């Protein structure tokens, strides 16, 4: 509050007058391209291929690379597994309802959400302690965790991220790369019955070699007709 009456309005008018005579900053975009920082990458957008399928493979590589951790995702990766966000679930529109239920202490009737269930963190804490909380021994930690729980629950992955200081994206990205690490309990996992992705390709390759050396079938690709 000013003591001299009218000073405020004089100041305001002074600003208006100054701006009035300053050069204008209207860009004739797109004829006249805007002057943007060379590091500007535009708006994040997922791409679709020519069949309309989402190209993103939920590999978390971009989330891992993003320096300010603004990228996150959820979806099905190339191994046919459900991959979870690595940020807070509340920040995602499609998850908001479940989150609300969960916060209200109600059960969430979504199997994909079982990944988030709380677990006894004792074993994973012991594993982290044994491995010196060293992110350089991540693979060893993940293998021991899987041996302890039978699979890699999200809560354990989060704990590993927290305990080693490695980003969740790093932990998840490593775990999802190796075929022998799994995110579902063995019984629920479909990989045992019909291998998908890499496991399937390997089985086909070995079977194909057996086929082509013998003089049996001449159709190694196993096409029906």
């Amino acid at each position, binding site marked *: 509050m000013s003591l001299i009456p009218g000073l405020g309005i004089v100041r305001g008018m002074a600003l208006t007058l100054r701006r009035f005579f300053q050069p204008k900053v209207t860009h004739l975009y797109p004829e006249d391209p805007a002057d943007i920082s060379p590091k500007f990458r535009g708006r994040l957008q997922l791409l679709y291929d020519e069949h309309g399928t989402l190209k993103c*493979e939920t*590999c978390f*590589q971009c989330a891992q690379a993003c320096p300010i951790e603004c990228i996150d995702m959820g979806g099905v990766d*190339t191994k046919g597994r459900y991959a979870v966000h690595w940020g807070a679930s509340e920040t995602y529109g499609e998850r908001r309802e479940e989150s609300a239920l969960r916060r209200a202490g109600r059960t969430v009737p979504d199997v994909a959400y079982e990944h988030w269930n709380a677990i006894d963190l004792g074993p994973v804490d012991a594993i982290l302690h044994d491995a010196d909380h060293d*992110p*350089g*021994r*991540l*693979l*060893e*930690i993940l293998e021991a965790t899987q041996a302890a729980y039978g699979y890699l629950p999200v809560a354990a992955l989060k704990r590993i991220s927290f305990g080693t200081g490695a980003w969740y994206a*790093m932990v998840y*990205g*490593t775990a999802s*790369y*190796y*075929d*022998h*690490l799994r995110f579902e309990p063995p019984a629920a996992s479909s990989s045992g019955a019909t291998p998908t*992705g*890499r496991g*399937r*390709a*390997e089985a*086909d*390759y*070995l079977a*194909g*070699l057996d086929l*082509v*050396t*013998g*003089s*049996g079938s*001449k*159709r*190694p*690709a*196993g*096409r029906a007709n």
Partner: protein
Amino acid sequence: MTRLLKTPAGWPRLLLARADATDPTDLDVAVKAGAFGGLKKVVRSLAPAAVVAEIRAAGLRGRGGAGFLTADKWQLAASTPADRRYVVANGYGADPAARTDPVLLELDPYAVIEGLAIAAWAIGAETAYIAVRATETEAIRRLEAALGAAEEAGFIGADVLASGHPISIELRRVQGAYMLGEETVLLKALEGKRGQPEQRPPYPAERGLFGRPTVVQNVQTLALAAWILREGAAAFRATGNRDAPGTILVHVRGAAGAGIAEVPLGTPLRAILGLVGAARSAPPPKALLVGGPSGGLLPADLLDTPYSFTDLRDAGAHVGSGSVVATAVDVDVVELAELLTRFCAAEACGKTIPCRIGTRRIEEIATRINAGTPRPTDAQLLTDLSADIVASALCDHERLATLPMSSVMRYFRPELDAKLQPVAQQTTDRQRVAVADGEPAH
């Protein structure tokens, strides 16, 4: 266990010399048969530079597939300034159809341990790793026993042969992806990271494990290095061929059987196939798949090609995993190439565009050719795409993944053209209809 094939009496046995031992982990028996003779000589009388010179004089090339000069790697690692250096024995055996490396580890673990110690001595490393596929339980069991016995006897450990130098060797079990065989990927796995290749150069010999100079060497290469230091470079030069002396383990498959054999480099493919004992009257195979899943398909008239790094590369195949497969006469090679390409695309790590998308596009082209729905431009597309992938690939996997289809283009063109043919007809028909409808033809 995979069968060992009988080889002709004249063929040298450098890798499998001690393979007949009843218990390969018995250190006394192995030492009587020559094990650790090379290491003793090195520790007693050879400076690190002299070890590298001996390996160079022997002309040893890596048995992991690419045939890189081993002495160059050791030299580079030894001359790069660093506070610490590492040696890694690559015993992963990426190709599920070639068990040569695990079999060597099962039959003569001491040869690999000795080679590893010699390599560590030559570059000044104190820590070495042996990476083995976690599912090869027998090789792991024997290696553990051998490592224990060798340490007990003072061949490795805190004070190697009372020289004051420590060389500790750690066994690491890795599993979970085909790509783990590639050296930069293997190092990532040892660091506990996601297994994706790194740009080379800098080669691991300059900046490898934990950023330190690291020599990654196939287990056969290491066993041969031990042999060279024991028997001398001249004796090694007397085996194999001029450009690549020595022997290599090959996993052969044919109609009459399959097995592993030690083969002098430069042996004609025909002689290698003869090891599985195909009847003389049997028709020659239609194609030979040389190099594993990313190998090249060679026609029967190239049966006299010598099995060596350069000759195979010139013919459009490669040594690769050491797998040689003879196909039956009635095999559809285009379908075989599709199957191989699918395997390679599925195993590609996804790091780069040629890897993630290039290999998959080749697979798609192969699939539609075989499904009878090729596009008229597919032959050209295949040529261009393969060239682009070879030119822009990050690691060798993508480059090699183009081989099955491109070798079919090169040697089995009539068969491929037959599959491309009917469609040329279809397309013209369709175009004519389009013109009649008043639509512009293009």
